[in-house]
């Protein structure tokens, strides 16, 4: 008996997805050790559930949602949540500096840690730029309108913390909301 199919495929999945899954885990947790553990857990779980994956093209969101579930499981068991209220996002000053300064990744991590997970996850996935709004909504099992309003608030928070010279955007008509 050669290498079982699932074995062969899980190695392929590791090769293809480990860098971004690790980065996602790092941004969620802020710790290299936790990020590595989570990435490892994700692939182990994926290996045991590979048979449940129906559509090959859904493999990426599937892996990300396994990772997020593993993360939530840990957070709940540790009960470590310290978050800021996004109602207190400050107004941004007017004129933008030109060019905008680079954002230090460590300061970004601090700002992310201040956000509740329900804001942190969509904003990470958004800036990774690999996920559509629909993907993020599916990941989080939320209506797309909810994702968009959380994302708008999380983006505003990060901008006010990290791009202090950034202008407030003229906030045209704002997004659809959830709920009929």
């Amino acid at each position, binding site marked *: 008996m050669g290498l079982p199919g699932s074995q062969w495929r899980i190695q392929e999945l*590791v090769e293809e997805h480990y860098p971004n899954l690790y980065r996602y885990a790092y941004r969620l947790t802020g710790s290299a050790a936790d990020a590595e553990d989570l*990435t*490892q857990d994700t692939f182990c779980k994926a290996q045991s559930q590979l048979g449940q994956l129906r559509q090959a093209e859904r493999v990426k969101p599937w892996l990300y949602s396994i990772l997020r579930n593993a993360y939530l499981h840990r957070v709940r068991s540790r009960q470590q949540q310290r978050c800021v209220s996004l109602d207190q996002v400050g107004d941004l000053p007017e004129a933008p500096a030109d060019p905008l300064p680079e954002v230090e990744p460590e300061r970004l991590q601090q700002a992310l840690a201040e956000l509740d997970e329900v804001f942190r996850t969509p904003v990470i996935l958004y*800036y990774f*730029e690999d996920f559509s709004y629909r993907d993020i909504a599916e990941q989080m099992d939320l209506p797309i309108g909810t994702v968009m309003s959380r994302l708008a608030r999380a983006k505003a928070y990060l901008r006010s913390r*990290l791009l202090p010279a950034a202008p407030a955007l003229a906030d045209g008509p704002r997004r*659809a909301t959830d709920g009929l």
Partner: protein
Amino acid sequence: MDCRTARLLLDFARPRVPELAAPEADALHRHLADCPDCAAVQRLERRLDEPLARAMRDVPLPAGLRERLLEKVAAPPTVPRWYRRKAVWSGLAAAVVLLAFGWYWFNLPLTQLDLAALHERANNQPVSAHAVVEQFPHDRLQVALLGGLAVEAPPRFNYNLLTYHGICELQGQRVPFLEFQNGSNLLRVYILDGKRFDIQALAGLVMSGRVSHRIELSPDNRFGWLYEYTGGRLDRFFDPEVLPAI
């Protein structure tokens, strides 16, 4: 296209993950070419996003991570012998529990949907919809499993009007739903699994209001489609090529 619509669609026109259908993307493109205000908003959004996106992805990978992960998935899980003996007994015990649970599950009472409460709540809330995400061929949805839940989509609707599909909570149960929009009118279809809801008790029920409700059973009676819609008419969401039978 007006500025209001353009600002809404800007969110869905990211360069790396375009989510707009071609006609909308073209209309937005034309609007941005003619409207300096919206074009400025788009430029500013991108300028603000770029440094954050760069910083977000700037995570160094630990040395040897790839090898450690590959090693982990390559190693077959090691099971000590005592554990294997224990596993046989645990397996038997689990089978008994599963059988009992299966029997209970099979005989689980069906959820009685309180349509009157649903109707009242829907009529006392502001009505809104999701933005257009993607258009689906109907056959892709019909075979879909949404979030692990069985789905049979009603065939009569115009799936070009579909703006969203997802899972919501309906009286304590996770229920797949589809959302359609035609002009200012909205239709939400909740797909009730006959194994979980007492759909027979509700078949054919109609409640009218600012938001109306109506229940129809699938031809094989396995699913109930609960329609929740504004504007008092369901036929505006029908596919013109499918004969309406309701």
